[in-house]
């Protein structure tokens, strides 16, 4: 009864309040001229600020791609650094519009807590890092170990599963911020540090002596990492999903950042022409301009470009792409974008 009365009352009140509830995220974003992208507080190669506050990384490039698709420039993004614990609440509440923060796609996250995953920009798996001088060569030798990890990640659950499945005991030491995990591990609080292997490679660059640590060969989980949006706004999810797919498909068809303009000018391939925005009407379908995918490729790059620039073998993170799941499906990986048509 009371609730019903309250609802009626509130309905009356809401008549007097200016409501923007009907506008979708895309309209709001177009109106304000930028969108908010949730990123990490600093994972080299994925999302990391330099000392002037400029963000870079493969996760950041997803947001830049979305910005390029909507605004024609990759820079209309405000980056909001979030801890793992804050990220979903921030997305749910509307504090951010896209979460691109090495977030694992799982059923419960997708179905239960009001999130929608828009794709995968990095295929990863959880691993363990130990000190070289500990003599450990396999994760199966970790019985009784103290394990440092980050709060609020799938890592925490996988770790529990792994040790339980193998009948081993362990001591979880869970920190709120990634930097604190690294610091504590470096100070010897833990025998091993576990997170996604890409994260291990990235965080290793932050250790006092990176060469004194090794990553164990076992991968104990699947960690498909990708951008996330709020549930219930399909148009917005489409834009994020196809911005990512456009980068993957561009690589498959040989369109890269450097040669985009010349290739587009001369191409006879209809798939490429669609990506260049010369044919098709993909833009209209997404409520974007026709050049949306061309803007992404020419200003941010294709998937290969952003991979090599941020986490590839020639970067401090140094994750070789060949032979990993992140290689294109044509090269034995699992990277495969649905056709943009």
């Amino acid at each position, binding site marked *: 009864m009371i609730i019903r009365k*309250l*609802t009626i*009352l*509130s309905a009356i*009140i*809401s008549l007097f*309040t200016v409501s923007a*509830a009907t506008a979708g995220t895309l309209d709001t974003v177009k109106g304000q001229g930028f969108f908010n992208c949730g990123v990490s507080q600093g994972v080299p190669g994925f999302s990391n600020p330099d000392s002037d506050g400029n963000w870079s990384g493969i996760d950041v490039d997803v947001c830049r791609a979305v910005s390029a698709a909507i605004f024609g420039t990759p820079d209309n993004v405000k980056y909001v650094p979030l801890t*793992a*614990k804050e990220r*979903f*609440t921030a997305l*749910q*509440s*509307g504090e951010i519009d896209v979460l691109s923060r090495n977030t694992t796609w799982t059923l*419960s*996250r997708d179905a*239960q*807590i*009001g*999130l929608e995953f828009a794709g995968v920009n990095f295929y990863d798996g959880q691993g363990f890092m130990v000190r070289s001088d500990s003599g450990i060569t396999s994760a199966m030798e*970790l*019985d*009784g*170990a*103290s394990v440092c990890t980050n*709060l*609020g*990640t799938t890592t*925490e*659950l996988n*770790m*529990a*599963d792994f*040790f*339980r499945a193998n009948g081993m005991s*362990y*001591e*979880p*030491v*869970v*920190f*709120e911020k990634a930097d*604190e995990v690294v*610091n*504590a591990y470096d*100070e*010897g*609080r833990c*025998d091993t540090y576990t997170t996604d292997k890409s994260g291990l490679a990235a965080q290793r660059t932050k250790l006092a002596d990176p060469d004194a640590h090794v990553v164990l060969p076992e991968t104990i989980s699947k960690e498909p990492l990708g951008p996330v949006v*709020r*549930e*219930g706004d399909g148009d917005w999810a489409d834009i994020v999903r196809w911005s990512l797919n456009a980068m993957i498909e561009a690589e498959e068809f040989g369109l890269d950042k450097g040669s985009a303009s010349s290739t587009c000018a001369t191409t006879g391939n209809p798939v490429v022409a669609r990506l260049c925005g010369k044919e098709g009407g993909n833009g209209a379908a997404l409520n974007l301009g026709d050049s949306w995918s061309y803007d992404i490729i020419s200003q941010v790059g294709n998937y290969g470009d952003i991979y090599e620039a941020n986490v590839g073998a020639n970067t401090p993170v140094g994750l070789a792409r060949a032979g990993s799941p992140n290689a294109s499906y044509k090269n034995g990986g699992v990277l495969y974008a649905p056709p943009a048509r």
Partner: protein
Amino acid sequence: MQDRNLSLSNILFNRSIQGIFYQIVTLGLVILAIIYIVDNTARNMVARGLASGFHFLGVEAQFDIQMTLIEYSPTSTYFDSFIVGLLNTLLVAGLGIFVATIVGFAVGIARLSSNWLIAKLAEAYIEILRNIPLLLQIFFWYFAVLRALPKPKQSLEFADSFFLNNRGLFIPDPVFGEGGTLILYSFIAAILISIGIAVWSKQRQNTTGQTFPVFYSSIGLLISFVFLSMLATGFPVTFDYPELKGFNFKGGIKLIPELVALTFALSMYTASFIAEVVRAGIQAVSLGQTEAARSLGLNPNQILRLVIIPQALRVIVPPLTNQYLNLTKNSSLAAAIAYPDLVLVFAGTALMQTGQAIEIIGMVMGVYLFLSLMTSIIMNLFNRFMRVAER
């Protein structure tokens, strides 16, 4: 008076009308604001497909917790994780309050010491610690502790049964065998008898003025009872000694470095405030009291114990309670250094896993609010009790 009331009745009437009007307006605005927020939240939650309600509490939590005072495994429910976090919070708060009280009283009394050096040291302690943010002190101590302690294999050890390393402090865990309950009973009996002696001695002092050494006799009773009962049952207590197995020590009781650092930082910080409270309390007792007590022939120890402290306590207790509450709330900073308290476990991992921010933050805030209100109520009762004892 009557006349004035009559002549002013008009205004008075207006005033009370005004008062009622203002109150209705205020109440209305507050209710509208609450409805507005609730309505917005409900709409937003529906629009974003967020779950609501407390069903999640019965769901399997799937994560591990570093330190649990009750039985807990990844198959336990979220509600269990809530209890684990709550108990850990209470543990660190309890330990912190205990240590902070001792250190605080010691420093506060030292601050008034006739010994110049000790008084200055106490002052320096107070002025340095209370003017530096607690979070900074927690970080500092945690990483200072970690850096200073050795690896498990090079543990500092004492009598082959106490070990200290950067995984924590390991001490033997007493295991009570058959007849162990007798020891417990004799312990309780000793306490009861001591209380009886205290009551009897108080009565005797009131009637005859003679005193009885209650404190020492109680200690003697406790020790002899426990020892005799152990003798009678043939020492059924064995110890589970910590042993180095693989990476870490197994067995025994383990105090994790996070708990040690947090307790240390919380209690050292709060002690600097308690010391000031204690000093103000003692200084509030007028010098005449000491002089009067001295002229009655009490010795300095008796003066402090029977005259100064009881009167100072009346001034000390209310702000002291505030400090205890502050310490409890400050223990929520545990999350910064991986101590699995309520905020880290429940408002951290559980919140992330379930995504039910409103329910979880509500529960966590509710717990702290409850603790704080309970403490205020107990303290009000205590104050009333003290006041009755006064006259």
